[in-house]
């Protein structure tokens, strides 16, 4: 007996929601970035599961691109963290409000 699709979806949703929670609540920017990775992984699980169940490889292609974008995003994000850390000596997002209008 195969695992139903909805289980995978629930799993993906759970991972995504945990990522959201982490992103919204943590003050450390690195953890926030990791939360984003979590969310992306959640999405990937969903994509690959769907790709499997509806027999269409394009879902995996999309996941593939997501991974590529995630890598890019991590690189840029972490570079920003370094720059920020160098200038402000902090990794705490709530201490920075340079963009206040």
């Amino acid at each position, binding site marked *: 007996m195969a695992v139903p699709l909805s289980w995978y979806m629930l799993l993906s949703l759970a991972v995504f929601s945990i990522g*959201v929670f982490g*992103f*919204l609540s943590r003050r450390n920017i690195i953890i926030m970035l990791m939360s984003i990775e979590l969310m992306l992984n959640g999405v990937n699980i969903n994509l690959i599961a769907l790709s499997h169940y509806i027999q269409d490889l394009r879902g995996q292609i999309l996941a593939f691109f997501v991974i590529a974008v995630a890598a890019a995003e991590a690189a840029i994000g972490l570079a920003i963290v370094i720059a920020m850390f160098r200038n402000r000596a902090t990794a705490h*997002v*709530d201490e*920075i*409000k*340079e*963009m*206040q*209008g």
Partner: protein
Amino acid sequence: MANMELQWYHVLIPFLPLTGFIINILLGKEVTRYKAHWFAVSSVFGSWLCSLATLQDVLGGKIIDADLYTWILSGTFKVGVGFLIDPLTAVMLIVVTTCATLIHIYAIGYMHGDTGYYRFFSYLNLFTFCMLMLVMGNNFLQLYFGWEGVGLCSYFLIGYYFNKKSAADAGKKAFIVNRFGDFGFGIGVFMVFLTFGTLHYADVFANVSSIAGKTVNFLGLNVDLPTLIALLLFCGAVGKSAQIPLHVWLPDAMEGPTPVSALIHAATMVTAGVFLVARCNPIFNLSEIAMNTVAIIGALTMFFAATIAITQNDIKRIIAFSTCSHLGYMFLACGVGAYAAGIFHLYTHAFFKALLFLAAGSVIHAVHTNNIQFMGGLKKYMPITYAVFVIAGLSAGGFPGLSGFFSKDEIIWSAYASHSSVGKFVWILALAGAFFTPFYTFRLIFRTFFGEYRGGLEAEEAATHAHSSSHGSGHSSHGAGHDSHGSGHDPHGHDSSHGSGHDSHGGHGHGPHESPYIMTVPLMFLAVGAIAAGWVGIPPLLGGGNHFAHFLQPVVGHPEFHGTHAEEWGVMILSTTIALIGLGLAAFMYLRKTDLPERISKQFSLLYKILYNKYYVDEFYNLTIVQPTLKLANKVLVGFTDAKIIEGIVNGVPNLIGIFSQKLRRLQTGIAHHYAIFMAAGAVFIVALVILLS
């Protein structure tokens, strides 16, 4: 009348002066310089010869109506540059080219040594071209072309001494006042096109009977169509011929050099209005109201201008008002249907008035002032000028046997014989005019040529500096301003005195001197005209054939007058007597009892002031039209509508957005988590929405 093909000499008439203009304006500064008159005079003389040839054709019963080329073509609107040469045109051609030639020659002497010599002659040539185009045109638009063209040249020539503010102002005033008249004229032309579908004279006049009695909705009013068209066209004539209420520009136009005043503001341009009315006589004839308007406007102008003339002291302004007055005579004649008489007076007037102006120019040339209070006794210094001046004055005053007598008499008789109430009214005014004309003309002559020489320019300058109250009545602030303005000497006076090297310090032993022959010979020719030009129109009563009226009859028709020979004799004797009384009174007041004028002006100081200030018409216009318009421009439009309302809205909208965004930017806290929370909230909201909606 047989039609005839356009000949080369017809075309040359206007285009010779144009050539002269082009040569002088392009080469004048470097090449022709003080030889500019060679091209100018020869071109005008050439066109005079061509005009004679043309007159020959027309006397032979030929009529020419031909287009040179199509000027404007747009849909049904088609108008050409073309010539209509009929008796009326032929008369005008002779008047224009003769006067132009003589005045060109005179100007050689008068403008001698002036820095803008070539410029002056090129403008004169351009003027001649435009005037000839005006009278030769075969459609309304070409008339309009010449009309505006002569206006432009008038602007140039009045403002010839452009360094002088008063001259520049006068030029501008002439142009703009004329534009008011042209406003009506232009609309009249539109109406003609909308009514007849063409602007070609022949086509319009052929169909003119079809509009008799028709009414048209014009700006919400139902008006009689022929009246409307005729009055609109007459607007233009009022402006150009300086009739009330647009007469104000003509006196100021005397800022121009004297040959200009003679050519443009006496002999030719100002008579264009009369020409227009005569040309459009088929339209005017359809409307009783229009005819009466023409007659009354003419008569009123004639009367009021004459009354103003008796108080003025500027020699040229007196003659200018006299011109106004005589133009009024011409309109009066047209208004009672005697177009031929009007044109006849135009023709004789051209000679004697040009002569008056040129002789006045000769005087100014000698004494360097325009103010007759500082002249006097010139008879012995300038015999030729004196002689021609008297001839011109007699002719203008209607002394029997001279040109002016015949034409004026014919007008007065026509007014009397028209037997309408309007005709009677204008007849009385015409008789009054017959009194005033010799009076002010001879007042001028007596003040200028008789008595003792009163010092010329030096005396005037001394008087001006001493602020002497030279005029009996009190000075209003304007009056004082006007004095210095009105008696401003022709600035040319200085130039010529230095240029010709004469010692002209009048009043210090050396009197003024007679002008050179180049100036006096044209005067003599004109004097012959002033005496004899009228002999072509001697009425049958005096044994003549009135050839002039018969010549023009194909164009302007002949009014039916009901009058006996006895009446005609009576009217003639009456008017002559009145004229002689006027002359005699002038002689009495200015030769015998020279203190009388002063006393009279003291006695009737209010009347004198009104007359002297020309009924305050200029002041009235300034107060009601010029100042409000400038105020409207400065205070309302620039300062309020544009700056406050429109710019207020234009700048107000961005400002509002700016204020709003100032409030809105408070939402941007700069804290990353706030944005994240909003995003998450948005996501939840959208998902919830999708679920609820599905």
